[in-house]
C-alpha cells in the first residue's frame, strides 16, 4: 500500500487544570490515505473533535499536544510554528465546521472571502481568482454562482452557507479536509445534499476527508473506514461495512444496538447502561469497563491497546490471543450465544 497522506501516531492531548492534568485524547494512532473518507464517530467528549482541531493546528490553549506525532505526506506538522502551520492550513488541509455562520465573516461578501483565500495560497491575479471563486461556488452547487458571489453570508440559507464554507475549504485544492460535524446543524434533506457533495468531491479530486460526527448514519453513508472513539481512545477501527455489520468492540455493539431503526418493532431498544465517564474520573484499565456487559477481571487492571483482527482493530481484551488460557471461552460467538 502507498504511504498514507496523513499519519497520526500515539497522539496525546492534555488539558492542564488546577485539579490535575486531564487527558482528553490518549495515545491514538490512525492513517488516512489519498481519496479516502475516514469517519471518526463517538459521543460528545470522546475526543473526536479535539483530534481534528489538533491536526489543523487550531488546538485552543490550555489544550496541548503532549505526545505522539502527526505527519502529512511524511512531514511532521505538529511541531511547526504557527506561521508555517497557517500556510499548510488552507493549502494542504481544509476545514469545515459545524456552524457555517461562525466560519464566515459576516462583514464581507462571500466572493471577497473566497478571492482573498485563493490569493493567499496561489499567485493568481484578482480577475483569475474571481473566476476561480465562481467556479468553486458552481462546483459546490450554488445556483447562479456568478450573481450570488457578491452576496453577504446572511443572505444565504443554512445549507447554502455550508456549501460556501466547503467552497472556502476547497480554494487551494487541499489534499485533506477535516470536516467536524458538517451536517449536524442542518435539516435532514439538506444533510443528504451536503453528504452527496462531500462524496462527489472525494471521488473527483481524490481529496481525503476526516469526517468527525456523532451520527453513525452519516458515517455509513459517506465513510470508507471508521474509527470509533470512546473516552479519548480508539475503541475500534476498520472498514465501515465491517464495523457496522460485525462490530467487535462491546461499545460499538452497544452503540449499533441503541440506534432505533425503521421496520424493527422493538418494545425496548438495546441500551448501554450509564454514560461515558468525565475526563476527571476515567476508571483504571479499560475505560469502558463500568458499562461493558462482557467485562472480566483483566479489564479492571490493564488498558487494552488496539488488537489486530485482520483488517480491523479493536481495543478489547476479549480478542487478545496471548491471553490463551481463557481465550477460547471468550470468543465473541461464545459470548453472544
Amino acid at each position, binding site marked *: 500500500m502507498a504511504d498514507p497522506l496523513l499519519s497520526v501516531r500515539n497522539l496525546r492531548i492534555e488539558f492542564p487544570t488546577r485539579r490535575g492534568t486531564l487527558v482528553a485524547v490518549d495515545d491514538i494512532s490512525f492513517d488516512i490515505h489519498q481519496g479516502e473518507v475516514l469517519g471518526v464517530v463517538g459521543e460528545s467528549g470522546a475526543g473526536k473533535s479535539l483530534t481534528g482541531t489538533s491536526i489543523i493546528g487550531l488546538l485552543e490553549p490550555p489544550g496541548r499536544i503532549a505526545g505522539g506525532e502527526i505527519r502529512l505526506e511524511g512531514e511532521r506538522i505538529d511541531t511547526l510554528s504557527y506561521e508555517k502551520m497557517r500556510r499548510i492550513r488552507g493549502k494542504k488541509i481544509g476545514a469545515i465546521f459545524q456552524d457555517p455562520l461562525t466560519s464566515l465573516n459576516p462583514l464581507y461578501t462571500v466572493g471577497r472571502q473566497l478571492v482573498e483565500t485563493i490569493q493567499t495560497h496561489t499567485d493568481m491575479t484578482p480577475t483569475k481568482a474571481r473566476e476561480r471563486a465562481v467556479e468553486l461556488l458552481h462546483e459546490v452547487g450554488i445556483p447562479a454562482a456568478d450573481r450570488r458571489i457578491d452576496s453577504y453570508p446572511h443572505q444565504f440559507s443554512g445549507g447554502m452557507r455550508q456549501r460556501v464554507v466547503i467552497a472556502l475549504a476547497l480554494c487551494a485544492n487541499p489534499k485533506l479536509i477535516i470536516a467536524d460535524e458538517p451536517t449536524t446543524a442542518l435539516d435532514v434533506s439538506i*444533510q443528504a445534499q451536503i453528504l452527496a457533495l462531500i462524496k462527489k468531491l472525494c471521488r473527483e479530486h481524490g481529496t481525503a476527508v476526516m469526517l468527525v460526527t456523532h451520527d*453513525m448514519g452519516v458515517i455509513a*453513508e459517506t465513510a470508507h473506514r471508521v474509527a470509533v472513539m470512546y473516552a479519548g481512545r480508539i475503541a475500534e477501527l476498520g472498514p465501515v461495512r465491517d464495523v457496522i455489520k*460485525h462490530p467487535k468492540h462491546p461499545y460499538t455493539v452497544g452503540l449499533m444496538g441503541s440506534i*432505533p431503526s425503521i421496520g424493527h418493532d422493538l418494545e425496548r431498544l438495546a441500551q448501554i447502561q450509564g454514560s461515558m465517564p468525565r475526563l476527571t474520573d476515567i476508571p483504571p484499565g479499560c475505560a469502558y469497563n463500568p458499562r461493558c456487559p462482557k467485562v472480566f477481571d483483566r479489564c479492571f487492571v490493564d488498558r487494552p491497546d488496539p488488537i489486530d483482527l485482520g483488517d480491523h482493530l479493536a481495543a478489547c481484551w476479549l480478542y487478545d490471543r496471548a491471553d490463551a488460557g481463557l481465550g477460547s471461552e471468550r470468543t465473541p460467538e461464545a459470548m453472544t450465544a
Partner: protein
Amino acid sequence: MTAQPIARPTAATRPDTDRPLVQVDGLARYFDVSKPFLNRLFEGDKRQILKAVDGVSFEIPRGQTFSLVGESGCGKSTIARTVVGLYPPSRGKVMFEGAEISALTTRRAMLPYRNRIQMIFQDPYASLNPRWRVRDIIAEPLTAHHNVTDTGAIDRRVGELLSLVNLSPKDGAKFPHEFSGGQRQRISIARALASQPDFLVCDEPTSALDVSVQAQILNLMKDLQTQFGLTYLFISHNLQVVYHVSDRVGVMYLGRLVEWSDKKTLFTHPRHPYTRMLLDTIPDLDMTGRERQPVAGEVPNPINPPSGCPFHPRCPHAEDRCRAELPTAKPSPEGSMVACHAVEEGRLPAEPRQVAPAVATA
C-alpha cells in the same frame, strides 16, 4: 418496579376512555415579526405575520403516542408550546378531556389542568434552573400551590421520583451541573411526573443527547407510558426515533400537516411527496448500497410561503393546480390522510416501501 408504586388510576380504570384525551382542532398560531412601529412608519414596511402553524387538527387517544415530524421551521415546536398553553392559539382550539383548555386565558382558570399536562424540553442544559438543587426542582410542582407542605412527604416523593427515573435519591442534594446530559433529562422527566400528569408533551427530548443515552431515555419513556398509562405528544425531526416511539405520526411542512396516519401505514405506504422525500433521507445503516437521491431545494421562508401547496417549489409532481390551490386532506386507500392534489387526482401511484430490512447486526 420495586420502588413504591405511586397510587393513581391507570388508563384502564378511568372512565370515559372512548373520547380522545387530546383533540386539536384547526389550530393556528401567528407571530407578529414586523419591525417596531416607528421603523414601519419611517421605512414604509408593512406588518409581517409569520404563520408558524396554520390549521392543524389531530387527536390523541388515551395512552397513545402521536408524533409530529418535520424539518426545522415547520411549526412542530410551536404546536407543542401552544398545546401546553405557553402560547395562546391565534385560531382553533385545544381540547383536553373534552374541555376547551385553549379558551382558559387566565393562569387561575388553567390551574386545574396544570398538574395534568406537562412538558419535557429539548435542551437538558437549559431546562433545569442552574441555581436550584435537584430536590427543589423536582419538588416545585408539589409545593408550588401549597398542595403538599409536609417536608418529609415531599422528600419521600422526590426520592420515589428520582428512583423512578433510575437516579439515586441522594442525587436530590446535588446541583444540575453535576450531572451529564442524559441524567439531566431524567431529572426533567422526574419533574414532569411529579404532579402525576396524564399527558406529556415531549419537544425533541433526545435530540441533544448521544445515541446510547437516547436509547436509555426512549426506553424510560416507554416504560413510564406502560406503567402510568401516559399519553404523549412527541415532537422530533428524527424519523427512526419517531418510528420507535409512535402509534400515530403526522408529517408537517411549513405550518401544516401534509400527511398523517398510523405509523405502519405512513412508513410502508407513504403518499405525500414530502413524506417520501423525508423517508429517502434516512441514512442507510444496513449498507444495502441504495443510492440516495438527495432532494433539491430547501424549506422556503415561512414569512413568504409559496402560493397554493407550500411544497410545490420542491415537488417533482407539481402542476398548475398545485401552484394555485391549497390542497385539503383527503383519505387515501390505505387509510392515511393526505393533503396533495397529485394523490387526490391519482397522478401519484402508490409506492410501497420495504421498511423491514434484513437484521442489521450479525
